[in-house]
C-alpha cells in the first residue's frame, strides 16, 4: 500500500512566516451588483414595510418562504403572494464562537432556522436570535421578529435585526 503513496513535501506555517519558501500573493478586486429578482424583490419591498410574505403554489398548495416565482416541485409558475406572520418557531440553531476566518468571539452569535408562522410546516428562513440567554435557546422555542425602525429600513433581510423569544 505504501508504494502507492507519493512522498508529498510537507510545509509548516513557520516556513511561510520566515520567508523560507517562495510564494506569490494576489488580492482579487471583483464586485457584484445582484438583481434581487421577481419574487425576492417583492419580499424585500415587504420587509421595508415591516411585513413578511411568502408565495403559494396553486398546484400543490405549499406556502413557501423565501418566496419564489416558480414551484420547484410542480415546476409551475406562482403569482400568489400571501402575507405571513412575523413570528415563528426555532427549527434548529447554533451558538457560534468564531468568525468565518476563525477569530474567536466572546458573546456567541446565534444563527437559527426559523419556521415562519403562516407558511407550510418546515418552511424556514435563516436569521439570528437576540435578546436571549444563549443557554436558554431551545429547538421549538417561539420567537418574534425585532424590526429596525421604519426610517432605517432599506429593503433588506437585515431590516429584521433578529428574532427574540415570545413571552
Amino acid at each position, binding site marked *: *500500500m*505504501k*508504494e*502507492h*503513496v*507519493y*512522498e*508529498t*513535501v*510537507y*510545509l*509548516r*506555517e513557520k516556513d*511561510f512566516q520566515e520567508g523560507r*519558501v517562495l510564494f506569490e*500573493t*494576489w488580492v*482579487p478586486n471583483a464586485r*457584484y451588483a*445582484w438583481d*434581487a*429578482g421577481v419574487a*425576492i424583490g417583492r*419580499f*424585500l419591498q415587504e420587509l421595508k414595510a415591516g411585513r413578511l410574505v411568502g408565495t403559494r403554489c396553486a398546484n400543490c398548495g405549499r406556502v*413557501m418562504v*423565501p418566496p*419564489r416565482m416558480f414551484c*420547484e416541485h410542480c415546476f409551475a409558475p406562482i403569482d400568489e403572494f400571501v402575507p405571513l406572520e412575523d413570528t415563528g418557531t426555532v*427549527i*434548529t*440553531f*447554533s*451558538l*457560534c*464562537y*468564531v*468568525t*468565518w*476566518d*476563525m477569530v*474567536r468571539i466572546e458573546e*456567541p452569535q446565534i*444563527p*437559527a*432556522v426559523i419556521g415562519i408562522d403562516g407558511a407550510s410546516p*418546515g*418552511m*424556514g*428562513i*435563516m*436569521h*439570528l436570535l437576540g435578546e436571549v440567554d444563549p443557554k436558554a435557546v431551545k*429547538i421549538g422555542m417561539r420567537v418574534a421578529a425585532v424590526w429596525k425602525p421604519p426610517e432605517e429600513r432599506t429593503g*433588506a*433581510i*437585515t431590516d429584521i435585526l433578529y428574532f427574540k423569544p415570545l413571552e
Partner: protein
Amino acid sequence: MGRNRVAIVGAGMTKFVRRAQETAKELAWEAASKALESCELTLDDIDAVVVDTAPEAFDGVHMNSEYLSDGAGGWGKPVIRGYVGGGTGVFAAIQGWYHVASGLFDTVLVVCEEKMSSCQPHPQGAFLTIFDHTTERPLKPNLLWIFALEMNAYMSRYGLSKKDIALVAVKNKRNAADHPAALLGDPNITVEDILNTEVLAWPVQRGDVSPISDGAVALVMCAEHVARRVTDKPVWVEGVGWSLDTAYWTNRDLSYPVYVEEAARMAYKMAGITEPRKQIHIAEPYDPFDYKELHHLEGLLLFDKGKAPEATALGITQRDGDLPVCPSGGLLGVGNPIAAAGLMKVAEIFWQLRGEAGARQVPGQPKRGVAQAWGDLMQVGTVIVLGI
C-alpha cells in the same frame, strides 16, 4: 440499455498534508503517476481523462481543472471536469464509469486534486459565496453555521449527546494512524480529547471537524477486456447513483439526508442489491464532520434512522466490526482535500477488496463495498458500489 462492464485496476495518491510545497498541477501529477505505476500502464494507454477539483476560489484560478490538466495527463486527450462540491470525489469515479460503460473509451484516468492551503486568511472565505446573496449573505453567515444547524437538528431529533457523535471522530482518527498518507492519525486519541476541543459553533467543536488539507488521488478505470489483460484482481463498479435536493436548504428536514437515500437506491438497484445491510461488507461514507458519517450511514440505508450512533457505540463500525466504516480513517483522520478526499474513499474500497490495505485491512475478505460523498449546498449525494 447496453452498458459495458467497468473495472478499477489501479490507484495512487499523494500524502494528505496541511500545506504542500507542490502546486495543484504537481500534486495531480504525483497521484496520476502513482496510479499508472500501480497497474503498470503509461499515459499512452489512456484514452480519456477526468480531472475534478472542488471550489476554484480555493486556488483563485478560473478553470482550475483545465489549469492543472497537464499534471493529470490531459495533454492531447478528451478531458472532462465535473463539479458537485464536496460530492465531487465520488462523482469523478462515476464520470470515469460512464466514460467506459458507454463504450466510448476503454481506459480512463480519473484524477482529483485539491489545494486548500493557498486561500488566505482561511479557506472558509472561499465558501461564503455559497449562501444566497440577497436573503442570507447580509447576515454575514459563516460556513460552520450550516453544519452546526444540521448537527443540532440531527442530535435533537434522536436525543443524541456529543459523546455519541465524538465516538466517530475517535474511531476514524485511530484508523488513520495506519494510513501512510494520513494527516491526523492518532492511535491513542480518546473521546475526552475530542470533547475537550474548543467550541467553534456549538454543537460543532474543533475535534468534530476534518482538517484543511492539500492532496490528490487518482484511479485507472477500464473496460473488461482491458482489465483482464492488466490485472488478475479487477474491482468492478457494480452500481452508481447521485441525487440533488433543493437549494432552499432552510426548507429541508435537516435531520435526514434524503438525497443520499435517493442516490443509494439508484446505485443499489443497478448493483442488484436488495438487502444492503447483508450485501454490503464495508462502507466509506463521507465524514467531513463526525455527525455526517452517522447521517450518511442512515441515508445509505445501512442503519435505521437515528440508530447509527448506537451501532458505533457497540463497535459494529470498527475495522473488525460487522460493518467496518471508514477503515481508511476517513476525512477526519486522513484529511479533507475536498475532491481528493472523496476519491480517496473509492480508492480505499478498491484496496480493501483487493486485500491490499496493509495495516488497515479489514478481516473476512470483503466482497462488496460502498463509497459515498456529499456536497454542493449540503444537498448532493454521490454513491458508488464496488465488488469483486
